[in-house]
């Protein structure tokens, strides 16, 4: 029997107080995610239970109990507090998936400060705009990422502390840099946790939109309620599970379900800090006897591409439940996983803004391969008309995926951009920006984005951000960036550019521009293909018509081009 039991019964009898009661939380009282994920689990008698199995790419293995997690997060919290950091200060985590990242996440929350996790592969420009926007006071990082921070720190007057966790390897600390070694710091047994309340800010994740700079999505400690219950009912985590979430905590899946969900339930999880390879992943599952695996369609398609033979070398019989997130899970992947693992991947749909799973396939529920599933109990989901914003009752008709606001993990605002936040709510609905249909059984079917944002391997990339960065390259005159279909990553970034006078198109220049974007933004944002154009399609008013280029890439009808400028 799964944790959720009967989906229909849960729908009838649902209240978020189910999670509040299980977490012993009462409205108006203190709620601190850092405490819930460590101290509380120890108090429940699981202090000696393994919280984390960690494996680095060099075969470096470590394991930590919940008591270790409690002490480590206390120690980091105390260190930050001694520096003068306080509640609501923004503290950025800019690290690979090393244990300190997970402990610092809880340590920052314990002092009441706001965690700002950022993907460690971000280039200096991507890092700068996010730190600048959040007016971040401290960043916790590794020696290997220090050079990117050194490039931008002079432009960041609010950034007072650059904390380097592997200081031993640091050649020399410079301006504002402080070394901190968890192993060399005496563990702090008793630490007074800041009394955060339900609406106290907790996590600030950045996400990309079609226009403008990335937006900081502000979450609060009360998000725990949704994250706890969805982890329990959707991911079906149980006390004896070994859980593997393959997401990086630089993104929301890696925090909501890579830290908060499993640890608030007191479940053991494992982390593999290395690049993707099918044999390495299968070996990891076999070695740690992973029972619940939460991954992404891109990874699943990469495993499919690696072939069926490689699976036969490993014993994967420990796997009990599989789920996927980040992009639509294609039906072939669901069918493949059933054939290979004897289990179907369960698609889950949610966003940085929603903070927790919204539409999904539940354990025990019939999966229609390719479908997103049904809304989580307590979530009112609908497909609304893109003009009237009224729910579409007709099955099979495309509309916008929308939710009635008010679930615990819903974002509370975009940092310093309340106007953009308000635009997300129309006619009493939160608009996700994604399109779908509903079938006669109430299953949602994903269609695509309602905007130009590129979803590559489950990560959103803003075409605007890439176009702007391209224009900073001395050779680029104009730029337009669109999604290009990709067998594994679903979409990848493709750039169309015109060159300034004096520059000649060549594949060497293409490589130079690719690397320019990779270092400035990130490898995700790097165009996988650059096409040189004499002119870009524009409206008569001079606006570049991305949709013409997008349609060309996807083999779609170009649509109305009456406003297209004549050459």
């Amino acid at each position: 029997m799964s944790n959720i039991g009967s989906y229909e019964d849960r729908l009838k009898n649902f209240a978020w107080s189910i999670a509040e009661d299980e977490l012993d939380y009462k409205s108006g009282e203190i709620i601190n995610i850092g405490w819930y994920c460590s101290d509380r689990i120890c108090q429940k008698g699981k202090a000696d239970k393994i919280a984390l199995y960690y494996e680095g790419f060099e075969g470096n293995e470590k394991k930590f109990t919940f008591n270790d997690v409690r002490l480590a997060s206390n120690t980091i919290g105390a260190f930050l507090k001694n520096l003068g950091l306080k509640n609501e200060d923004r503290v950025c985590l800019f690290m690979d998936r090393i244990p300190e990242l997970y402990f610092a996440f809880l340590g920052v929350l314990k002092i009441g400060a706001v965690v700002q996790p950022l993907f460690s592969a971000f280039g200096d420009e991507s890092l700068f705009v996010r730190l600048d926007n959040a007016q971040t006071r401290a960043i916790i990082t590794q020696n290997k990422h220090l050079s990117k921070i050194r490039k931008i720190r002079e432009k960041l007057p609010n950034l007072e502390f650059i904390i380097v966790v592997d200081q031993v390897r640091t050649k020399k600390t410079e301006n504002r840099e402080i070394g901190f070694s968890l192993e060399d710091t005496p563990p702090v047994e008793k630490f007074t946790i800041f009394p955060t309340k339900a609406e106290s800010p907790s996590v600030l994740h950045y996400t990309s939109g079609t226009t403008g700079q990335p937006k900081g999505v502000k979450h609060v400690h009360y998000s725990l309620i949704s994250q706890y219950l969805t982890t329990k009912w959707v991911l079906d985590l149980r006390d004896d599970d070994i859980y593997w979430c393959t997401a990086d905590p630089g993104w929301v899946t890696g925090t909501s379900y890579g830290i908060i969900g499993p640890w608030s339930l007191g479940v053991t999880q494992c982390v593999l800090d290395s690049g993707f390879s099918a044999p390495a992943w299968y070996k990891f599952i076999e070695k740690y006897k992973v029972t619940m695996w939460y991954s992404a369609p891109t990874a699943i398609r990469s495993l499919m591409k690696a072939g069926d033979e490689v699976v036969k070398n490993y014993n994967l019989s420990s796997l009990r439940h599989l789920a996927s997130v980040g992009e639509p899970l294609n039906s072939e992947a669901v069918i493949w996983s059933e054939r290979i693992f004897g289990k179907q991947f369960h698609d889950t749909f949610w966003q940085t803004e929603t903070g927790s799973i919204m539409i999904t396939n539940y354990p025990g529920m019939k999966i229609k391969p390719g479908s997103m599933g049904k809304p989580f109990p307590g979530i009112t989901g609908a497909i609304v008309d893109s003009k009237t914003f009224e729910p579409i009752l007709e099955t099979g008709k495309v509309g916008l995926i929308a939710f009635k606001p008010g679930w615990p993990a819903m974002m509370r605002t975009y940092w310093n951009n309340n106007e953009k936040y308000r635009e997300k709510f129309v006619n009493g609905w939160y608009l996700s920006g994604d399109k779908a249909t509903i079938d006669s059984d109430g299953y949602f079917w994903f269609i695509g984005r309602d905007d130009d944002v590129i979803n590559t391997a489950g990560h959103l990339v803003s075409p605007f951000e890439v176009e702007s960065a391209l224009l900073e390259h001395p050779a680029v005159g104009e730029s337009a960036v669109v999604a290009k279909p990709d067998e594994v990553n679903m979409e990848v970034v493709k750039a169309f550019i015109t060159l300034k006078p004096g520059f000649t198109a060549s594949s060497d220049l293409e490589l130079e521009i690719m690397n320019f974007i990779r270092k400035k933004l990130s490898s995700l944002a790097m165009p996988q293909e650059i096409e040189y154009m004499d002119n870009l399609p524009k409206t008569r008013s001079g606006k570049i018509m991305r949709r013409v280029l997008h349609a060309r890439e996807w083999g779609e009808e170009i649509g109305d081009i009456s406003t297209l400028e004549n050459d």
Partner: protein
Amino acid sequence: MDEKNLIEMKDLVLNYIIKEYIDEDEEKITYDTALISSGYVDSFSMVSLLVFLENKFKIKIPSSKATPEAFNTVNKIVDLVNQYIK
């Protein structure tokens, strides 16, 4: 290909990878250092590495051959490139 040319080729690839993908403070990058499985070069960055190899050696490597396994070390990359050099 004689030993001297092979070493030159490996050094060329190695130096490019160090220059483009690996932080200046990183040490001990050799012909056998795991590049992809270590996370030094991610799957997205592999595309730019492929473009470099194709430009530099005037070859075309089919995308089906440009796998994480084939790109995992300098030795493997050079083996792959040599299959396409006429």
